[in-house]
């Protein structure tokens, strides 16, 4: 099993007191499969994603990626999993301002020591990024930026891609184009995808859906 | 001439803006100076020179002159010597215990210019020198100097007199046409009831010619002059507030010296010397001379009696004086009035008037 979440719980201290964001959540995702995680705002979708990415720690429960339990790992271990096994696509600010588009695309792959120039060339061709390679992130549009973000996550050839509303900042048309490219290339790379979205239409295009409601998986 | 004695002391030590705080030793007799003595006789030519053993001394010359245009004018030339300590004290390069003061002025009816100088004797900036009958009294380039170089001659027989200020200079030649006049008892001049005295003699018989330079040109002048010489060591009485002094050349060739010393209680001490045309003096003690203010004039913010009635009944003298220039104010470090006058009445005269303490 690529991803196996068991009884995850997570609370935050807020000004209004302790808020339980995730409550005993369990789900699985097989290699090469895609899963959409839907839910209302504040349902805990992003938190779940952040826990899987090792960006935050769960209060209780286990996260197994390819059988390896994240909950026992230290900061360095988590960073390594993230670097080597996980591609992340966020709603905004995915890119590194200091680097060109070409450098951004290759960055994580090189960091992980898995730089495959022909695969990246393929990605940038497919994503229509070739004319933009020498530019800096702030010089291209939001839709282009998200394509780069998708390309960068795939460039790593990770086992798992975690995406948090990757098209949330785009208009409908652009969103559809980016999503289509994403799913095509995902299939090509063989990576699994866990995507957080509040759009039922997007969720419908993925292999499976789960609905989160007030911190628990809806039946 | 007690008046000038007091004047000098005060001038030197109270008057200069520097000295305005008064002289601490003023009220006390200072030990170590030579004292005036009735039994001493004046000896000439020696007594023309300086007497450093005495505390104060002056050469005081006033002249009534007329310029080439017939305008009357007066000239004043004064050098005072003041000892700050007895003469046997240390003689240093900058301090020999002698401080000198000079005043010079020229007064027309419509113009009055004057200058003031100070000097320390040690530097030779001022002094009085008598060598082989040659007298030289100087303050900077101001000089009173014997011209008759013949051995044994009278140092005052013929003298040159120069002075210079910011806006005037004069160069006069004076020739004596009469003898020296000794005031009081053969030069021992009693000045008050309390036995203060000085040595006092005059040469009132000078005929003058020379030039006076002003910023607008040079004027030739002629006329009469009067030299006073006096020295003493006795300090001023505490109750004296000022004095009025006069010297007169009568048309008859006779002359008069007189003064009135004003006390704070309103009383006056007067003294006079009547001088015959041949120089024979007669001294008159306190009360013989009467001086009455007749005409007040505003000058330098003060009210000064520039016109006087002067009576000496013993000589049938009853005259009224008027100032050539009522604004003859000596606005130096101590301000006073000094200028040429004319007199009419029982006698006609020219002369000089000095008034202090107004």
């Amino acid at each position, binding site marked *: 099993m690529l991803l196996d979440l068991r009884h995850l719980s997570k609370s935050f201290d807020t000004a209004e007191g302790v808020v339980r964001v995730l409550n005993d959540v369990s789900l699985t995702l097989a290699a090469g499969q895609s899963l959409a995680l839907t839910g209302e705002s504040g349902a805990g979708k992003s938190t779940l994603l952040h826990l899987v990415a090792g960006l935050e720690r769960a209060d209780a429960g286990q996260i197994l990626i390819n059988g390896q339990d994240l909950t026992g790992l230290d900061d360095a271990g988590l960073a390594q999993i993230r670097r080597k096994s996980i591609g992340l696509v966020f709603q*905004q600010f995915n890119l*590194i301002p*200091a680097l060109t588009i070409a450098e951004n695309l290759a*960055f994580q792959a*090189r*960091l*992980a020591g898995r730089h495959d120039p022909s695969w990246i060339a393929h990605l940038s061709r497919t994503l229509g990024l070739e004319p933009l390679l020498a530019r800096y992130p702030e010089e291209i549009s939001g839709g282009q930026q998200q394509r780069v973000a998708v390309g960068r996550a795939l460039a790593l050839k990770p086992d798992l891609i975690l995406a948090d509303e990757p098209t949330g900042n785009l208009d409908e048309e652009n969103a559809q184009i980016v999503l289509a490219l994403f799913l095509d290339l995902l299939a090509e790379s063989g990576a699994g995808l866990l995507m957080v979205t509040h759009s039922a239409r997007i969720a419908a295009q993925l292999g499976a859906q789960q609905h989160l409601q007030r911190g628990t998986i809806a039946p | 001439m007690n008046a000038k004695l007091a004047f000098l002391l005060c001038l030197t030590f109270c008057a*200069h803006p520097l000295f305005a705080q008064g002289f601490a030793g003023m009220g006390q007799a200072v030990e170590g100076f030579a004292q005036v003595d009735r039994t001493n006789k004046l000896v000439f030519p020696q007594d023309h020179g300086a007497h450093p053993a005495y505390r104060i001394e002056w050469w005081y010359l006033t002249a009534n002159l007329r310029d080439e245009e017939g305008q009357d004018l007066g000239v004043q030339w004064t050098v005072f010597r003041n000892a700050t300590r007895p003469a046997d004290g240390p003689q240093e390069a900058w301090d020999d215990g002698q401080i000198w003061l000079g005043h010079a002025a020229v007064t027309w009816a419509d113009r009055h210019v004057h200058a003031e100088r100070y000097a320390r004797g040690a530097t030779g900036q001022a002094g009085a020198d008598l060598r082989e009958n040659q007298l030289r009294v100087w303050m*900077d380039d101001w000089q009173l100097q014997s011209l008759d170089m013949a051995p044994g001659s009278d140092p005052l027989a013929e003298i040159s007199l120069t002075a210079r200020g*910011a806006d005037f200079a004069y160069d006069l030649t004076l020739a004596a046409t009469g003898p020296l006049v000794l005031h009081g008892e053969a030069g021992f001049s009693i000045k008050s009831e309390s036995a203060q005295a000085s040595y006092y003699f005059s040469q009132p018989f000078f005929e003058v010619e020379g030039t006076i330079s002003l910023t607008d040109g040079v004027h030739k002048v002629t006329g009469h002059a009067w030299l006073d010489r006096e020295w003493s060591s006795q300090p001023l009485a505490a109750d004296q507030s000022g004095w009025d002094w006069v010297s007169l050349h009568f048309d008859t060739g006779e002359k008069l010296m007189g003064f009135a010393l004003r006390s704070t209680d309103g009383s006056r001490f007067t003294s006079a010397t009547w001088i015959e045309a041949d120089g024979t003096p007669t001294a008159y003690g306190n009360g013989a001379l009467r001086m009455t203010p007749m005409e007040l004039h505003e000058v330098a913010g003060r009210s000064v009696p520039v016109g006087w009635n002067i009576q000496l009944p013993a000589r049938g003298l009853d005259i009224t004086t008027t100032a050539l220039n009522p604004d003859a104010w000596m606005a130096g470090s101590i301000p006073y009035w000094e200028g040429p006058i004319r007199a009419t009445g029982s006698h006609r005269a020219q002369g000089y008037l000095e008034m202090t303490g107004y």
Partner: protein
Amino acid sequence: MRGDAIAATLAAVLGHWRRHPMQLFALIAGLALATALWSGVQALNAEARSSYARAAGLLGQDQFDRILRTDGRPMDIAVFRTLRQSGYLVSPVIEGRLGSGPNALRLLGIDPLTLPVPALPETLQDGTLNVNDFLLEGRVLMSEATLARGLPPDLTPSVESRLMAATLDPNLATGLVIGDVATIARFLGHDGATALIAAAQQPLGLPPITDWIALRDEVVLQRAETSGDLERLTDSFHLNLTAFGFLAFAVGLFITHATIGLAFEQRRATIRSLRAMGVPLRPLILLLAGELGLLALVAGGLGLALGYGLAASLLPEVSASLQGLYGADIDSTLGFDPIWAVTALAMSLGGALIAGASALWRMAQLPILQSATPNAWGRASAQLRRLQGGIGVALLGLALGVALFGQGLILGFAGLAALLLGSALILPVFLATVLRIIANQTRDAYVHWIFADMRLSLPALSLSLMALLLALSTNIGVSTMVGSFRDTFTGWLDQRLASEMYLTTATPEQAAAVTAFLEPRVAAILPFALIETRFGGLPAQLHGLIDHATYRDHWPFLEAADQAWSDMATGQGVVINEQLARRDGYRLGDLFAVTPNLTLPILGIYSDYGNPEGQAIIGLSLFQSLFPDTPILRFALRTDPNRVTELAAEITAATGLSPQSMINQTAVKDISLRVFEQTFQVTYALNALTLGVAGFAIFTSLLTLSDMRLVQIAPIWAAGQRRRILAGTEMLRILAFALFCSLFALPVGFALAHFLLAIINVEAFGWRLPMSVFPTDLLKLGAMALCAAGISAIWPAWKLARLSPHRLLGLFAHER
């Protein structure tokens, strides 16, 4: 706008500072520091200048001409007498020094009987001191500070009691005693007048006093002047201080400019919204300008207080320097001048205006609907960068031109300014190039990112880096100068003061007794004589020395004819110091007027560091024939250096010569070096301050940038880099910047040192120094720069390491 609209707008605009208190602090601190350093230096200069003016005005030197002896020696009273008897109004002045040690007194004797009243001390004019006491009782005047610091130790009891009874005059400089000319002559033990003061208006009918002087070779007329020799001498020192003050002000403005720029950029969104809601542009700009003015006033007030404190704490060292270098007496207590305070506030306002003008202008030009991208601020356009680089290169060219062809103090400083400004301007270009090269050479993705990111943050940091560069270059330049000076100076002292011991006797009889005693006991007795004189109208010394191997072999000639020393000693020529040669343009072989009647060829020119005055040396026998009245009272002794202390004791026992009259060479060197060290104390202090300010500039830049840094860092973190490593990287970035700056500062600093040594020093002091490089000093400085940068980066890096993932994640999405 209506009142509540204004209030609402104000709240919206000013709210920024509540959310960014660190920015507010940086803005005020930057301006306050700039104002403090500038105004502090100005206060020091003003205090010194007013001391000179008091010294000059006191004697009426600023109103009255003075007559001096051509050779600078005391004037016989006969000159005074002659002038007075010629009718001229002149007044004698006697000057001299009394006592030894730091509390030595400067004595001034005046003649109140002849001195023009405006030249009299006020205490005498207003009657605080009775002139009779002054004239007849020997009462003197001095300031309370002089009395409070203590009298010199070696006074006779009678002089000491006179001084203790002095009347206090608050207007007098510390160390100055005024008395009657007779009183001061008594204290000094000699009668000659130093000068005669001539009244402004001379009596009617005299030829001009200049005619009288023109007929006499032995006297000269010194015109009334507001600045005496002293001010001329000390001008360069003050120019130095002013340059430092200005540099510090510039560094402070860098901080302010960066902060204001950032604050305005961050408020763009607010401003845009306000304008979109109908707030007109003009009141908005006025509001921002007013806010800036208010902040500037607050900062200026703080700076004023700081500057006053700085000046007050540096003043003793400045006084010591000026005293040591030029013998100028400066009060060591600081006065307060309202004009100075107003100027300082104006500087603060002006500084804020300069720093904020571009931000305000850009704000005024901003279209309402342009998107507010904070990043745009960070990336200066390539065009602007090229322009900046071009100006920098032009300025460096100008500096090079000055270095090659320039002469004169002002031009020297102008070249120096061009050098520093030009270097600062090309620094970002230099760094961008270096960073690009390194980034392109790197294979590792993370390291590549580090350098690429450094290059991206360059525009935001460049102002503080320029400040660091200026501080570092100045440090390198000045410490190289000081080090070169010390190096040359100690070497020169060894040569110049080759004799082991120096004695000064009081009378020819004592001189005879001492030499008779020493004859069998030392290797050589080298008699010498000197007089104070004037060459070319300026103060100078003339020495008479003999021929001896000590001089022949050691005298530090810069250039000399063959046998220069021997020929000079036999009266065939003269040797002069570098100062005199440079001042009056003498070259080897030129003829030099030793006295108005004697002209000799120049056989050699020697270095004479630390001496502000000209100096010439002739053979002792020639000296004696020229100045028969000047006895030979001074001797240099060659003997076993280890026996000097013993020998001194023996001389005292045998001849009664006081120990103070004997100086051993080590003591002379110590004294000389101490004077020198004190001179540069102020420089050191200001150096340290500018480095501190530069460190602070980096700190504030980093703090204000830290929010923006998150955007750069979050994706890296998300891509699998740990926060601790990222924080460490932040630190390293700053250290790398500091290192690059230090490297760049090296050539700039050396160029600066060249300016100081070869141009400014020559103009200001009259000598040129060879440049020595001190690697350990440079390493120390580099370490200091890295420390300053490192310290400034600790807090931002620590903040980053402790940053909650929440803050980072918040960037990626608004939803949890």
